[in-house]
């Protein structure tokens, strides 16, 4: 399976390549009230508003350097994921939840589809479709953005 590998703070993450639409530099983002801390806000990408998620906060809880937006297609539109440096496209071979789903926690178990290794670092394969809670879309609809 081919995936787009990138950094999110200290973590090394990957997204399935068939879910990725585009990579780009960070775009102007409007913060949204009442959203979780990992939601940076909403930005207009290719003429379409899309919520922006901070992958570092989403996975690690702390702030990280934001160098790229990675847009991912979902059933309800594109979602931008703010990340660090994009490493490249790699073939990955994840194991489902690392074989220990209970150890990765409740919510996290819904974000990480599998774990691989690149050298000595773990590579977290994200499930982007499941990573966006509904509240985000509700907040985006409340902001009046079409």
């Amino acid at each position, binding site marked *: 399976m*081919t995936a*787009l590998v990138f950094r999110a703070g200290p973590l090394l993450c990957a997204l399935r*390549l*068939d879910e*990725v*639409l*585009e*990579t*780009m*530099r960070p775009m102007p983002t409007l913060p949204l009230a009442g959203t979780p801390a990992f939601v940076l806000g909403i930005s207009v990408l290719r003429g379409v508003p899309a919520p922006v998620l901070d992958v570092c906060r989403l996975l690690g809880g702390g702030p990280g350097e934001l160098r*790229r937006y990675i847009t991912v297609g979902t059933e309800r539109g594109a979602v931008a994921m703010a990340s660090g440096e*994009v490493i*490249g*496209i790699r073939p990955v071979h994840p194991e489902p939840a690392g074989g220990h789903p209970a150890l990765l926690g409740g919510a996290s178990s819904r974000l990480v589809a599998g774990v691989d290794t690149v050298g000595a670092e773990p590579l977290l394969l994200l499930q982007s479709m499941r990573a966006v809670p509904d509240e985000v879309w509700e907040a985006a609809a409340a902001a009046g953005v079409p």
Partner: protein
Amino acid sequence: MMAGRTFGAKLAAGFGLTLALTLLMTATSALALHYVSATNEKVVKTASSSLVEAQTLSGLMDRRLADFRAYLISGTPEWLNTVNQDRGTFLAQLARVRDTLDDAAAEKLLNTVTTAEGQFNTLIGQVLARRQKIKALSDVAQIRVDGMKPAREALQATIDSLIKRIQKVVADSRKESADRATWAILCLLGIGAVLIVSSAGVAWRLSRDLRREVGAAVGHIQSSSSELEAAAAQQASGGRDQASAMSEITTTISELLITSRQIADSAQRVSKIAEDTADAARTGDATIDQTRASINAIRAQVDQIVQHMLSLGEKSQQIGTVVDLVSELAEQTNILAINATIEASGAGEWGRRFAVVAEEIRKLADRTAGSAKEIRALIEDVRGAVNTTVMATEIGAKAVDAGSRQFDDATNSFRRIVQLVATTSDATREIELSTKQQTTAVEQVNSAASDTARASRETEASAVQTKQTAAHLSTLSGDLLDLVGTRGH
């Protein structure tokens, strides 16, 4: 009134007063003599003219009677003419008598005489007329005219009264003259007494002032002579001391003269050294100018280095801009390559080949970005080195400026030293000249000191002579006090 005047003025005033009184006495005497002389002249005039003329009337009357009788006897016309001429002579005498009279009573008597003579002449005319008619002398006795004798006696009586009156007037005038002479003599005696009293007063006053003032002055002279004698003695002693001191001063001045000559020689040597120092300073001045030129050249080179380093910094910045552009292009290429790979992943076999190309492009972009990053780091290093160099160069430039200023200060100090050396040289020359002049002056002072020593000895001798003279003057003052009679006052 005479207080405060000098004795000479008093003496002159006294003699002046005496002279004035003498002149007054002389004038008064002259006036008195003139007055007495006028009175006597009046008496003489009255006596010699009026009285004589009046007495002449009596004589003329007698001569007229005699001629009248002669005519009566002779009856000749000659005697008749004589008788007529006698009357004219008598009338003319009456006129002369009238001219000499200045007494009213006498003039009145003279008028009486005139009247009596007219009556008498009338009677005489009658007699003469009868006599002319008579031829014989015996008939003459028959001529009778009444009142002839009383008229003649009345005429004679009036003439006698006139003469008596004139004699009385003469006597009165003589008495008046004697009285006036007596009064003049009394006045002269009075004025003479006043003159004698005034002269005695002046003499007494002058004598008193002479005793008091001249005596006091002579007393002062005597005391001053004593003081002068004491002062002369002291001066003689001082003269001896002064002569001794002048001898010591002469010795000291001789030593000072030797010292002045030594100072003059030293000043001359110092002047020579100062001139050598000034020459060396002028040589050092040229070296200073060369050093200043070198410092200015260093300063210009440092400024050029700073300019070059600043230009290098600007070039590095421009390179950094280009590198930033390259980095930007590499990053953009990286993004495009990744997106191309993403797009190619869904395009089957051709997509995979394109993905391989895109991956290679991404790798090239990554390498380009890495190289740009390294170049950026190198440029930063170069800029840091340039800044450090510029700062070091500026510090060096400041050090050069500070050194230049310090060199300027040193140069100014050196030039100041040169000026001071020149001033010192001038001052040394002045000292040399002054010392020579001082030597000459000291020689003159030495000569003057010798003269002064000689003068001191002469002063001593003169003081001794003065002492003797003062003693003699004191003795003379005592004698003079005895003369003016104020000894012991």
